[in-house]
């Protein structure tokens, strides 16, 4: 093989190999590590995965935050103003975690309670993550167009 062709072959093979491996790995890793965001209405309707981590977004309900005395465990309720999901979290809450503010928590449903491993509140106190805003808007719509969510919830 002449040197130019040989070089091109090496380069092409290297690129193809790397791209193939990387694509395979990425797609595989993406599928395993994606977490979806659900609103309390969707969770209540049984749309959230069971036993698999997901994110729950909504507003921290007024008067729902209770600390278990002597521990770092905090119980609160996340609401989209239609459905409420009880959440429990052990650890230090972020600075901007406050009643009436939007938050996104990551965790799993266990016996009707969302056990959070991560609680996110945003830097800007007036800022609502677009995802949460959409989830709430969507919950509003579903609420208007009938009680599909509630029926599904009753089947659980």
């Amino acid at each position, binding site marked *: 093989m002449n*040197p*130019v062709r*040989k*070089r091109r072959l*090496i*380069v092409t093979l*290297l*690129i193809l190999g*790397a*791209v193939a491996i*990387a694509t395979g*790995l*990425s797609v595989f*890793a*993406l599928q*395993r*590590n*994606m*977490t*979806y*965001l659900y609103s309390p209405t969707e969770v209540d309707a049984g749309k959230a995965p069971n036993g698999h981590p997901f*994110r729950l977004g909504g507003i921290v309900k007024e008067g729902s935050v209770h*600390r278990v*005395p*002597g*521990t*770092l465990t905090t119980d609160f309720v996340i609401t989209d103003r239609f459905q409420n999901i009880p959440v429990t979290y*052990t*650890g*230090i*809450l972020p*600075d*901007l975690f406050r009643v009436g503010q939007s938050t*996104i928590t990551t965790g799993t449903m266990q016996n009707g309670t969302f056990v959070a491993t991560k609680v*996110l509140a*945003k*830097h*800007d*106190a007036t*800022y609502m*993550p*677009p*995802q949460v805003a*959409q*989830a709430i808007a969507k919950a509003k719509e579903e609420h208007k167009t009938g009680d599909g969510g509630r029926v599904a919830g009753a089947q659980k």
Partner: protein
Amino acid sequence: MNPELGQLALILALLLAALQCALPIIGAWRGSKPLMATAPTLAIGQLVFIALAYGILTWAFWTNDFSVAYVAQNSNLSLPWFYKLSAVWGAHEGSLLLWMLILNVWSVAIVVFGGKLPEAFFSRVIGVLGFVSFGFLLYMITTSNPFLRLMPAPPNGADLNPVLQDPGLVFHPPLLYMGYVGFSVAFAFAIASLLGGELKSTWVRWSRPWTNAAWAFLTVGIVAGSAWAYYELGWGGWWFWDPVENASFMPWLIGAALIHAQAITDKRDGLRAWTLLLSIFAFAFSLLGTFLVRSGLLTSVHAFAFAPARGVFILVYLAVVVGGSLLLYALRAPKVTGGKSFALASRETMMLVGNLMLTVACAMVMLGTLYPLVGEALNIGRISVGPPYFGPLFLILMTPLVLALPFGPLSHWGKADLKVWRNALIRIVALAVAAGIAGFIVGARTWYELLGVAAATWVIAGVALFAIKRWREAPRGKRYPFEMLGMMLAHFGVGVFIAGAILTRSMSVEQDVSMKPGASVHVGAYDFRFNGVAETPGPNYTAQQGTVVITRNGKPVVTLHPQKRTYVGGQVQTEAAIQAGVFRDLYVSLGDPIGPSTGSGQDVGAWSLRVYDKPFVRWIWGGGVCMMLGGFVVILDKRFRLKRAVEPETVRPTPEPEAPRKLAEGEA
């Protein structure tokens, strides 16, 4: 000074940018000397107006002119003066103005240092920079005017976001922007080459210091951001794979690849097409970075407000720049490509492996960062992709790079020398294994730790072997030219970084605890005693300040004062207290009060606290700083003095690969 003057200055700068884009390029196309001669004047004129606008905005902050909406939103009467100056770039509009200012400073720097480049080429470079500037100015004037008035003016401002009130922020964005914008030089060179239809390796050589500088600034910007997140966000982490972090990391990866590709094109006249492509992509990712951060499309810890018009503008701009560049590339690249062949075990191959891994890693990061956006657009649901995706994949992709890294400098350009390889391999493996055993004796127990020590040694041993080789084989005085020294420093930094990243991850002890005053907790080899919380006033906040006494085996080590600040605007911000050390950081941050602050009962005065023992965490940033220094040291090399770049090239400068060459002749 009048804010409307600032707006006027921006509009004038926009007009000059339009001229700077059009006149020199038309001049270069028609061969008109008078048109080409306008380039320096226009670039300098634009800088004057941008600097004027920037000065006016700074003045508005300095004088608390709350009739300017941007000032009212981001400043406060009680804000300390240095934060008033840095608040100029504390939010969207002002940071764009800073972007523009830096772009224009870079343009004028090219005018000053590049005046001796061939005139047509120089004019095209300035023209391309004018186009970049035009797009951003148009964006700023139409969607993000920092000089908008607020009537009636409020008596006091809303205050700068407290997260941003930190020495880290004073440097973080300008450094990042120096990096982002710096890649515009390589981009302008690439586009100018494609427009002109020819690429000389001397031009690539001339643009190398600019790329190195840009990358070095980006490196230190990312390091500053990471350190800032570490002590300001109060989580003790140093990298979160947050979309905004990824946004700055993608151009960094491509920039690192570009630096090496440019070296190949400069030294061997090879890989021209690849270098051009990377030049385009480094800048495209800088624009994408700006887009991701500023459009507010992504949910992230940075969470800027959502502004669809802005996002759409940058997206269109990005499409024009990237689409146009790639179209030009497709049409013109065959004209400018070419180069020399090389053997499989040559330095080029090693550098190519590194290049590929960096590019693929960038693609991987891009996929994970943009996938949620695509998912949302296609309505498959609101997805988030977190560290479990990025971390392991990045580790896998970087493994070949780390393995190849020592062999790049040690092998020859163009030809394979398996004997050199074998000798180096034996020594490096021996050293890495020895380091692993030493680590085991010192106390490392997990595979992860041992592999980390071995990998760091692998890289550093490669640098050491290269240093010894040069010392033996090169004549005195020519052993370590700056270019080589910079490379060694940067590679050494990679080794230090690997050690830091891996050891911190596996050796850290992190505990969230609830503590009453007088209570103690044992973390790592240390005892942390909590002495309660007291209120302390600050300039524009009041702080709950805790006192934590740290002892080791009964001997006092240090007393730390973590704070929980409440700013005048009502925002709460945690200030971690850190005892920094070369081998370990002791880290305490305040959570929330758990019990009542007074009275009686079991929880009185109790707080939740984060208590960390983080060994080797400084090495992460130490490695980054070495990489940055490496980037800057390379610039000092004599190769890059303009005299060389101006020489008319009638003969190809590089020797034939088959010809025997001496190591002494600038072989790196």
